[in-house]
């Protein structure tokens, strides 16, 4: 449709110009992004809702059906090339419990793997905000993103993947939500808010800010695990020391429970022995001693 429209307008404008100049459609756009949104097999309903939410928020995304393999992830690069995407957002679910998010820039770009926790989707009834489907968000980054190299890299990835490029296909004109990225305790916290304006500030542009925020969702906490130099391949260039795999956490819990159980068993045995050994001394004045004969 847009191609036909463009063709018609070009005809009406002028016949000499075959290519539209940069000035006619606005300043030259550098930010052109397309995100390939894909998940692995074994995904849970909650994760599926998250992916659907992200697909709704990002008009420059393309949702593809599940990827079969969990080992040969290099196939994602081929998929991205096929669909002409220069970003990949891959959600990997393990054991139907743990969700990992991979952000990557094919074909050569770095890859960041995150562990997703504290996931709250948009459908939860506590999130009362709403926004246009495909409106461009304002992205807000914590000051901590400037301090370290890896955080700068993450910030760039977030801007290109979560930020809607101008003039994206299905984007809407007005700005009505803001996404915040903060770093706390070595983890990235993502929140999404709707911008509510009072009527005065709408009419009067120069008025002082009278905005309020209402949370739309979804809510995420990302723990960076690893950064690879290539797209789903290549050497490791960063590894997070504080990251503990959820399997290890579960194993430790089980070991604690086992130690507890063993302790209880040992105590029971000790009690038994104690009862057997600790016998009262024979009392010379007891009845059965005196009246034995």
């Amino acid at each position, binding site marked *: 449709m847009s191609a036909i429209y463009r063709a018609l307008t070009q005809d009406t404008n002028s016949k000499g110009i075959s290519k539209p100049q940069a000035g006619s459609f606005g*300043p030259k*756009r550098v*930010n052109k992004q397309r995100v390939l949104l894909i998940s692995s097999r074994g995904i849970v309903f909650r994760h599926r809702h998250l992916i659907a*939410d992200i697909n*709704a*928020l990002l008009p420059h995304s393309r949702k593809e059906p599940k990827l079969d393999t969990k080992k040969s992830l290099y196939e994602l690069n081929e998929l991205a090339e096929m669909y002409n995407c220069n970003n990949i957002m891959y959600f990997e679910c393990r054991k139907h419990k743990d969700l990992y998010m991979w952000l990557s820039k094919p074909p*050569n*770009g*770095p890859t960041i793997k995150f562990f997703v926790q504290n996931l709250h989707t*948009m*459908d939860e*009834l506590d999130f*009362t905000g*709403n*926004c*246009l*489907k495909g409106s*461009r968000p*304002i*992205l*807000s*980054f*914590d*000051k*901590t*993103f*400037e301090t370290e*190299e*890896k955080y*700068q*890299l993450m910030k*760039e*990835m977030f*801007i*290109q993947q979560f*930020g809607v490029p*101008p003039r994206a296909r299905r984007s809407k004109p*007005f*700005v*009505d939500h*803001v996404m*915040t990225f*903060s*770093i*706390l*305790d070595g983890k990235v*916290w993502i929140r999404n*808010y709707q911008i509510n304006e009072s009527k005065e500030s709408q009419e009067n542009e120069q008025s002082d*800010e009278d905005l309020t*925020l209402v949370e*739309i969702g979804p809510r995420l906490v990302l723990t960076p695990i690893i*950064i690879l*130099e290539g797209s789903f391949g290549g*050497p*490791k*260039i*960063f*590894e*997070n*020391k504080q990251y503990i795999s959820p399997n290890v956490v579960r194993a430790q819990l089980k070991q604690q429970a086992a130690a507890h159980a063993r302790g209880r068993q040992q105590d029971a045995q000790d009690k038994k022995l104690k009862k057997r050994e600790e016998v009262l001394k024979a009392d010379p004045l007891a009845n059965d001693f005196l009246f034995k004969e």
Partner: protein
Amino acid sequence: MTEIMSKDSEYKSHTLSKKEHRLLRKLGKKATEDKKEVKEDKGTKGMDLNILDESDDENEVEDFESEKKEEEEEKEETDDVPYSDVELDDDADVVPHTKLTVNNNAAIKQAYASISIPWEKHPFDESQSIMYHEKVELEIKDIYDDTERELAFFKQGLDAANEGRKKLLALKVPFSRPADYFAEMVKSDEHMEKLRLKLVAEATDKKAKEEAKRQRELKKFGKQVQHETLQQRQKDKHDTLDKIKSLRKKRQNNEIDNKEFDVGVEEASAGKEEVSRKKRRIHNQVMSKSKDKGKQQRPGKSKRRHWKK
């Protein structure tokens, strides 16, 4: 399979396997490097221990070690030297074993350079990203306190929204959505309706609870008042009966005088209206009694019932 097994048991080869070759090569390399490294390590590890004692941050030691490892990482990633091969001082404490991790800042910088877009050279409209002027981590005292944390994020978002609005309006980018602009929203209308119903239900619940509480308080208060009036009435009854008794006694003893009697009645009638009515009745009765001394008018059963107390 069985044939191969029997071969191994009979003949033991003395040629080294590939794994053993590798290990040998490593040890051979390390034998020369180790002596240099161990001396450096001994010196630096001693320094590290002192720093450890002074500082609280355990990451310092790890960063120091990771910087050293940077050159090595490019060739082989896990190049652990087993501690049995390294010569340590006898009186040096055992260095806390740090997990060998990678932090190749140079490569990260390079990767960043390869993907970054120079946002400063383009108008704000291109990325619409704002850097908050504070570190959220410093604002929050307790990270496990949900309200405090969410408040900090809210403040960050609000600040960004205000700043973004200013910048976008300066660029003449449409910011506010007009009231008549209808388009597909991220949450469907049915969902918003459900939300609205939930909020309304919450509000009505709250009101109902408050109302019930108020009623309960009033009821208690009302009960108290009722109790008090009952008690007051009983007390009055008791008082009047006592007075009657005393009067009868006095009358029997022929001490009563009309004047005396009147004063008491008048005093009582100065108070409440109902009481005065009762008193007047009683007064009349007693007066009639005093007139014909012979005949004693026996009061009715309701009165006699209360005497028995």
